[in-house]
């Protein structure tokens, strides 16, 4: 088995196994930390796929931002001294049937379909190119995303803020 294959299987295993823990664990804290490993696994896969900028972004934003936010959410919605943090599971059987079915169908599609054949992109440094694209072809979504962030953050802050005197 080549080195690349070994690394792939390692990261794939981390990702999928952690994903399983996120979804199945009893304790919310276990889920949150498993999510951390899932994000790391995905970042590793990105590196293998030659998306270096994306991998760094994944770590910075998903782990550094979103996961921290989720942890805050977990912590703030449970009484700290009551370390119960149990998260219950309902209707497990139908859920697992649906999930298994989805996995089977989507994998089959993934394996059977003739996806677009192209030159492919051997791993290379992408940051400069991505930066250039942001300023040229992707300018509109770039600016729109900044508006989205402004409004989302304003909105989130407004929702959480204690009612002010009007």
């Amino acid at each position, binding site marked *: 088995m*080549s080195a690349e*294959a070994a690394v*792939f299987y390692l990261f*794939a295993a981390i*990702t*999928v196994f952690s*994903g*399983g823990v*996120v*979804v199945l664990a009893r304790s*919310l804290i276990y*889920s949150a930390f498993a*999510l951390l490993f*899932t994000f790391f696994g*995905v970042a590793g*896969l990105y590196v293998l*796929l*030659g*998306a270096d900028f*994306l991998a760094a*972004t*994944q770590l910075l934003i*998903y782990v550094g931002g*979103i996961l921290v*936010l*989720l942890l805050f*959410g977990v912590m*703030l*919605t449970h009484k700290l001294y009551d370390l119960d943090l149990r*998260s*219950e599971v*309902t*209707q497990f059987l*139908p859920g697992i049937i649906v*999930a298994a079915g*989805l*996995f089977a169908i989507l*994998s089959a599609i*993934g*394996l059977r379909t003739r*996806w*677009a*054949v*192209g*030159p*492919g*992109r051997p791993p290379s440094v992408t940051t400069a*190119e*991505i930066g250039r*694209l*942001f300023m040229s072809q*992707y300018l509109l979504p770039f600016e729109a*995303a900044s508006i*989205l*962030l402004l409004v*989302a*953050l304003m909105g*989130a802050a407004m*929702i*959480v803020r204690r009612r002010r005197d009007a």
Partner: protein
Amino acid sequence: MMVGLSHYLVVSSALFSLGILGILTRRNAVNVLMGVELVLNSANLNLVAFSRFGSGNLQGQLFAVFVIVIAAAEVAVALAIVLTLYRLRRTPNLDETDILRG
């Protein structure tokens, strides 16, 4: 065996299915959010894999960057709402939200 597109697609479909499982079976709103994040990550993995093996352009990766940004904004708003839910009701569980029924 060379690691090819199919390998990544199987991983992403596994992630997607796990995410859906979490969304369908979890009572805690934060847990459901984690399931959603799994789904978004699986789609991102698809995009990057297709970019690498298929088209050769960076459009997939750019798309993935925007997805990450959107996910961040979504989580911020979702947690704000969950926090308010907890403040009003002392529980982050979804089963106990049933005022709106009719």
